[in-house]
């Protein structure tokens, strides 16, 4: 009885509009093996494959027809994809675009090429760089030996090329009030030479490798109709966005390892409601988090 009752009590989120399309452009391949990665990316994870320019093209065209507002490119590490720059060139001809990167592979030549693409477009190209600590000790404990120094080098190259990168920090600290930590990040980034430091804090999603590092979701961390009563569904990114990977179209960037989160082969097929049945759904609801900038 309780099992059937649970199934009927899962609230669903409608797709109100397809504003944002994400691309898992590097699949689940990454040069780092972060211990809190919610999709367990690493040098050998090929569950979602690298996407070529030819793979992304039909989705870009479909997104235009559906009135897309913006694109996001993530992985894995997007700069492992040799076709990233041509893909971005295609995307920036259509809509503003954001790249989520660990910056460890960005050299002066990359940064200059990105800058040329950005300047050739009427739209913004946002560079979002993940960093999880203010010093090598705290960052590298999560992201791997040497990653702090390499990320800083990449950030400096982006800054020199004229970008104001958005540094994304996973909230690994316990204190729910993150104001002080934001200020510290801001000040540290200014010290290393970023002219206009921008910081975005994201909550931890306890899936993938993070579930092993700490703990997964507890059965009580699930949304019920009471949770969403009077709740503005527009605040959930799944009401306005979809994620494209080599495996098809998923509801969001967090749940690409969940089979039920694959909503179709095309964007059109994916334009339907989704049951908010995951622990990660509870996190987005509780924190107001969005993977958007």
């Amino acid at each position: 009885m309780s099992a059937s009752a649970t199934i009927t009590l899962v609230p669903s989120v409608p797709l109100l509009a397809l504003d944002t399309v994400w691309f898992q452009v590097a699949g689940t391949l990454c040069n780092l093996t972060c211990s809190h990665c919610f999709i367990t990316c690493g040098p050998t994870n090929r569950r979602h494959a690298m996407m070529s320019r030819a793979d992304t093209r039909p989705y870009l065209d479909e997104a235009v027809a559906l009135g897309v507002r913006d694109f996001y490119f993530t992985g894995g590490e997007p700069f492992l994809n040799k076709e990233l720059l041509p893909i971005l060139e295609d995307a920036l001809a259509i809509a503003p675009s954001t790249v989520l990167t660990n910056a460890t592979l960005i050299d002066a030549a990359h940064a200059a090429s990105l800058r040329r693409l950005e300047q050739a477009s009427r739209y913004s190209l946002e560079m979002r760089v993940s960093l999880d600590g203010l010093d090598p000790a705290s960052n590298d404990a999560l992201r791997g030996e040497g990653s702090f120094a390499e990320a800083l080098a990449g950030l400096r190259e982006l800054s020199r090329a004229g970008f104001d990168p958005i540094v994304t920090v996973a909230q690994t600290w316990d204190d729910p009030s993150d104001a002080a930590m934001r200020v510290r990040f801001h000040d540290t980034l200014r010290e290393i030479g970023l002219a206009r430091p921008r910081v975005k804090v994201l909550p931890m999603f306890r899936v993938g490798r993070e579930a092993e590092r700490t703990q997964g979701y507890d059965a009580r961390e699930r949304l019920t109709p009471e949770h969403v009563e009077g709740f503005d569904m527009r605040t959930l990114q799944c009401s306005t966005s979809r994620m494209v990977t080599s495996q098809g179209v998923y509801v969001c960037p967090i749940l690409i390892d969940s089979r039920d989160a694959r909503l179709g082969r095309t964007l059109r097929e994916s334009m339907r409601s989704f049951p908010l049945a995951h622990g990660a759904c509870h996190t987005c609801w509780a924190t107001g988090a969005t993977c958007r900038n």
Partner: protein
Amino acid sequence: MEPIAVFGGPYGNHLALRAVLEDAARRGASAIYCLGDLGGFGPRPGAMIALLEEFQVITVVGNYDRALAERQPDCGCGYTHPKDNEYARIAYAFTDARASAQDRAWMARLPESLRLLRGGRRYLLCHGSPRQTNEFLWDSASSNPFLERIAAEAQADQVLCTHTGLHWQRELGMGRRIVNVGAIGRPANDGLRVAWYAWFASDRHDAQFLPVAYDTDAVAAEMDAEGLPPEFGETIRTGWWTTCLEVLPAKERARGRW
């Protein structure tokens, strides 16, 4: 076609508002439209309604006006960064404390949007976007396919909006056009000490953005005297935004000083 003037966000800046209204009247505007957000930022939110009535301005509700009318706890600007929200809270508390019951009732009567038929084109006037009062339509963050979709869904040939505080316009497909008229209460983050508004000349659907000078030193001094953050006064004195910057997309942010 009669010429019309359209402006956004007077933000409690009474001298900017008076200067724009006088300029539009002098040019012979057949109608003047305000796209909302009477308060926030400036020193005299209580002076806005009388000025709008004096010049018979037709006004659309902004998120600020709705928040005050409904006595909401914050301005509903839609900022997501704590640094932006910190200053937004100060401006809202200042404005809220100066809003009378009559002011709130006046704001509660403002329409969500207005439709005009002008020269055979369907104009839609709104605050943020046709679908959401506090949606930011930035130039560099709004794609053509997206703008064409929301205009088509709103059954409009010409969408006039504000909310971002930065003016821009773009011709879209199918003869459509979007015009973000900007805001007059705060400079346009361009280093100029002026108020920008949109003028639609008698034979045209594209906007001419007009800069209007006003006594910025006087407004900044009033802001300081009211105990508003010195950063607000600095913005008026320099023409560069000093607060609520985190919401800006890359291109818009890079054009500013901060």
